[in-house]
């Protein structure tokens, strides 16, 4: 009996103790992936890169307002903050700067996060091995694109002082207390990233991924930015070798604003939400801003039908912006935001030739483009400066509303920027070419938590 009780007791105690072994703490997060098991296959790496692409900020409208693309309409007064931005109001620029800064750095952070994890990505076969290399190259190009944008926004023009503070060059994902590197160092870093990526041969039939050609385009753009004209010509010509005159027909131009991938684009951000809706007040009454009348497209210009949108406002026919705005007005969705196309390469290389003094090469090149799209060609007698002006003006026309002009004006800093009254009837004020506002303020968070040097002219309290 006593034996029995003892056995019973021991069994009960033992049974209770076995309960201990039933538990484990290795519980993976349920709908999430955590390191080190998160980015281990090529498909997840691609998905993370997709997230970086989709986080890229699109402030093309805001930069078009700041540049010389638009003039106010009778409706501008109904969108005070856009009008203030058009008039280069400090407060408005101060509001825009922090979000740009953080958004570009967020894309950089995601690229860094991806690149740091690429070693852990296992490729199952040769195709995946190749895809893995392509992903890394794309991440570097995307990072380079962000740095270039940051540099253009937050640092003065290259030729003013290449040793002036540029932007912060991150070395890893996370907080670092790094200060701003000089513009020269930044350019070197961007070039290094792009050269690295350019060595990987790849292309995609989808416009949303940065191909080898897009890397070349960026190299050309960077070279032009840093006054390396031969570099711009070399890289730009590599891009132009892939160009086809079929892209410069009515149909070709039309495809730039279509929903599908198109070989005439070098790179365009894929987009699923509404885009450029902010310019329109209402479909009946019109837009807040219209295309600067100084940019009038000639009748034979094939671009005219697509780039502007004629609309009756206040009893007159006004040229509103076409492009995405036209799509919105016609209820077509925009799935690509054009970022690089062959026309851009023509302008980069032509300008580089011009600046190098090779007027004839510049004229020959740009005339080819102008011939295709129905714009009067430059005569052989044209002077270097006249040709340069023609190229820059037409570049502005080409990229109207795409936020390019602001950066060209800042880079060339040749003349004051005029701000116009309604319909562009008169000049209200002008922004000097050396105004402090061309260089955006460093955001409060950056100088408050990282003690980074503020750009001249902006408060830092």
């Amino acid at each position, binding site marked *: 009996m006593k034996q029995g009780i003892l056995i019973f007791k021991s069994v009960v105690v033992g049974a209770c103790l076995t309960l201990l072994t039933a*538990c484990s703490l290795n519980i993976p997060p349920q*709908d*999430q992936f955590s390191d080190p098991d*998160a980015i281990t296959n090529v498909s997840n790496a691609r998905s993370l890169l997709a997230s970086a*692409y989709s986080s890229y900020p699109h402030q093309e409208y805001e930069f078009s307002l700041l540049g010389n693309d638009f003039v106010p309409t009778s409706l501008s007064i109904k969108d005070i903050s856009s009008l203030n931005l058009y008039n280069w109001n400090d407060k408005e620029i101060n509001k825009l700067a922090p979000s740009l*800064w953080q958004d570009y750095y*967020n894309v950089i952070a995601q690229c860094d996060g991806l690149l740091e994890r690429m070693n852990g990505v296992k490729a199952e076969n040769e195709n995946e091995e190749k895809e893995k290399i392509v992903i890394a190259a794309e991440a570097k190009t995307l990072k380079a694109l962000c740095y270039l944008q940051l540099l253009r926004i937050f640092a003065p023009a290259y030729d003013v002082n290449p040793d002036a503070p540029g932007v912060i060059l991150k070395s890893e994902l996370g907080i670092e207390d*790094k200060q701003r590197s000089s513009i020269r160092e930044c350019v070197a870093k961007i070039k290094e990233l792009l050269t690295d990526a350019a060595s990987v041969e790849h292309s995609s039939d989808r416009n*949303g991924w940065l191909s080898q050609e897009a890397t070349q385009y960026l190299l050309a753009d960077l070279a032009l930015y840093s006054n390396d004209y031969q570099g711009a010509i070399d890289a730009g010509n590599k891009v132009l070798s892939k160009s086809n005159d079929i892209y410069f027909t009515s149909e070709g131009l039309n495809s730039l604003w279509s929903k599908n991938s198109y070989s005439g684009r070098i790179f365009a951000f894929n987009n699923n939400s509404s885009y450029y809706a902010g310019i329109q007040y209402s479909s009946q009454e019109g837009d807040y801003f219209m295309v600067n009348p100084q940019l009038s497209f000639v009748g034979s210009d094939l671009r005219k039908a697509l780039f502007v949108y004629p609309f009756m406002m206040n009893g007159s026919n006004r040229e509103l912006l076409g492009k995405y705005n036209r799509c919105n007005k016609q209820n077509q969705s925009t799935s690509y935001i054009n970022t690089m196309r062959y026309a851009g390469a023509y302008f980069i290389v032509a300008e580089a030739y011009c600046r190098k003094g090779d007027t004839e090469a510049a004229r020959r090149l740009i005339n080819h483009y102008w011939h295709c799209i129905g714009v009067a060609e430059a005569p052989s007698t044209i002077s270097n400066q006249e040709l340069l002006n023609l190229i820059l003006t037409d570049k502005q026309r080409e990229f109207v509303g795409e936020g390019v002009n602001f950066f060209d004006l800042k880079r060339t800093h040749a003349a004051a920027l005029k701000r116009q009254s309604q319909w562009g009837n008169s000049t209200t004020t002008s922004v000097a070419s050396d105004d402090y506002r061309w260089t955006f303020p460093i955001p409060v968070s950056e100088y408050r938590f990282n003690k980074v040097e503020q750009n001249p002219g902006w408060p830092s309290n």
Partner: protein
Amino acid sequence: MKNLLLWCLFTILGLFISLQEVGAQECRVYGYVTDASDEALIGVTVRIQGTQIATITDVNGRYQLNGDFNKSSVLTFTYIGYAQKKVNYDGREKIDVKMQSSENKLGEVVVKAKSNINAIDLRAKAGIVESIDMKRLSEKPMIDMGLALQGMVPGLNVINTGDIGSKPQIRIRGNSSFRQGNTSNEPLYVLDGKIISAETFYNLNPQDIASIKVLKDAAAGALYGVKAANGVLEISSQRGYNGKMTLTYGTDMGLTMRGRRGVKLMDTDEKLELERLLQNPAAPGYRYSRDYFERYHASDPNKEQLITEGEKRLEALRNIHTDWFKELIRNNFYQRHNISIKGGSGTTTYFLSGNYTYQGGRIEGNNKQRFSVRMGLDQQLGKIGYLMIGVSGGYAKSKSPNGSSFDPTSLVYNLNPYEQKTGELYSYPNRSYRDLTQQYQSDASDKNAGVDINVTLTPWQGFTLAYVAGLDYLQDDNHNFTPASSFTEQNTGVPDNARGIYSRMKGTTINLSSNLRATYNHVFADVHDVTLGANYDYYLYNYDAVGITGYGVGNVDAPSAINNSLHGMRQPSVRNPRDKNAQMGIGVVAGYTYNSVYDAYFTYKADASSILPADKRWNTAWAAGLGWTPTNYSWLKDNKVLTKLNIKASYGVTANLNGVTVSNTVGTFMFGEQAYEESRILSLLSLYNKDLKAEQNKSTDLGLTVELFKRITLDVNWYNRRTEQALLDVPIATSSGYSSLKRNIGILQNRGIEIGLNTKIIDAFDCRLSVGGNIAYNDNKVVSLYWTDKLYLDEQSIVPNYEVGKSYDMIYGLHSLGINPLTGYPVFLTPEGVEKQGTEPLTKNDFIALGHQTPPYSGSFYASFSYKQFDVDVSFYYVFGGKQRFSYQYVRNSDNAIYNAVSGQTQKMWFKRGDEYKEYWTPFYTQSIAEGNLALYPNTRTIGSSDYIKLSSVSLRYRVPSKWLQKTIPFIRYANLGLQGSNLFTWTRYKESDPESGTLAGTMQPIFTFNLNLTF
């Protein structure tokens, strides 16, 4: 209403007095049951041997019996783990009994079982454990358990946050973290040894609960490990008893009242005059006034005629006097039905109960109801064990018409007295009254089920093995609906086929806990009482939810009506948040008592959590304590004056991980709903901090208990809790790509003292009077911020959110000297004594501390009186020392002149140059810096003291004499009737809305009920 209550009262009184005569001749006895160390024993069965006359001791260990017995009768006292005690009834009215823990005396194995297995006796010797007065709690007619706890125990702060159904804020000794919100600061809720969710706790039925213990310090909560970093509420459910089955039915029927009016608003005449002064043509008071026509129709030949017509329209408005408070805020109903059965025989006892409660809200469409059942079965397992099984289920549903974009309560303050439910509204142009209500509805329901099994085995003498496993299952369902006919859907440019929003989220939460404890206790040489123990626990949390939001449902409140063809912003979406984590802990405990005089206690617990990477998974909690009870010295033992004196001190360190998730410490990615080039988007959830450490709560506690004449008890507790490595999401340089990061940022300190005094002034069988009160004081400050001395959580802010050496819930603002008669804006006095105009930009140096947001002092006091069959109990709750900012929402400026305004504004407002001694600044937006200063920062004239005293509960009860019952209604054994009330009245100097929640919707409703309790 008052008359009705009085009438009820007198009728009941009359009835009772006539009954009084009948129940006179019977024997009676009462007394207190304690253990060897004079601690009250709760739930001891006291019985007159051989009869059915029995009762159970209450929270104070008191029993009271009356009935047909005589001097030869024997009283038996039985309690688990104690030797049965028999006492001869000798005619004395008061018999106090001390029960002995049986193993010491008889040498036989006796099982001591407790439903909360961590509630070992040892713990209370060094830690601070306080019990809630369950009698008062269950007499408080309130649907929400959390809110009903307000004022019950000093240092347990409960703050109401909104209308009924919204979650209260429950804190033990203040916020232990810089982080705000319930996730990081809420205590742990444990019911019968199993961890339950806060929602399950809020919906518990007070009648099903035997005791609630509040574990305040590290020493008390150490066995729960890191989970107890914010303290523990340990709940034990009612169990059966050994005796004849009793069936109890209780009901409360009553009314909920409108509550405090908050701000008094203008009546028609004053409002129309104000409108005239504010000169906003949208308001009729100006639009139809002579002023308006003189200004805008100065050269109109028909001017006089227009003025006359205008006057006519104004006259029509002057005849309307709508009190929107009365129209919109309503009285409602409260009801509760409770039925319970308990009993048992020999080795088995049981308890069963069912409960239904309904509380109607202050505004239409706001209410809460719940239904719950509970079953407890206890079984003796031979001579060595005890088994307890508990099963519970519940359903709770709350409804609210308050949406994120629209709050009907605000209508009370916005609608004008000259407006009616029909016709034109000036306050909401182009909308009718119908367009303002029935705009939105939301309801939330919780269904919970729980089961727990508790086995206690004592295979060898002194050795106890206890195991509890519990499952708490909660299903919550949130449903929101905005009909297509609502004003916002109609008027915000949403296309016809996309109008109407339907959203629903269904989630399940599973809390699984398992806890095994082994303790060995032995007394050497009669004086050395040694206890050694170890425990092992495992806790699993699993949350899984599915939610849908769809558009275009029209007026159909169903998911089938969702328009699936929509794209863009109104595309239907599906969410599936899931979370699963587990914690495992191993602990040891050791205790030593010398001759019942000296106590020493030590506990160590290591906890591992699955949410942290394997290398930093383990965190520890340990505590050590000492106790001294001089009254147990033999020379003091039976002292009549000083009946108890106990001093204890403890120190403990507990890690806190609440609110930390995997994504805070390692890179964590999640797929989004969007795609990029047909590739799904996998994004990093947040920036992670590889160096993140758990918060360390270090607390020092001192406690003193003095009892005099067995009548007066004084408890004083002092604590100092330092939170090191305090966590907070702090802003970081955005070149990281992110704007915030969870970091260990500093050290904060909570210090305080809690004093409780309870006195039994009269304690006789027929007549009892006890009064008492308590007060708690909490003081907090930032001791250090590791890498800075000031921390700003917002880029724009001038005043830091946290500053070394300052309290962390301080409101900073400006010293106002009043309104400048010239500008209409205030003049501020800087701390240097310089006057600064409100129109000037401010700097950090202009600010001063205006006061604490959370009142540092809180407490309660009560009086409880019984005479013969009557019981009266009144309790008050108070807070003081806090400040609350006025929202100034009802002081209207020219722009919002169309809304009703606070009464007296016409006199108190600055309208023109030269207006002196005004309280409100100019209604005309004349200077943007001044408007910004006033909108962003409070000043000495725009905050008010949030002190208040609340009559938190009143109960008047009558126990029907059992003799009379036996004669007239023999199947009823006990009956009592009562009038009860909760939150009846609030006295406060706070001029605006509600001093507690600071919101208009938040005022707690006063509730009156009639209560009936019958035991069969």
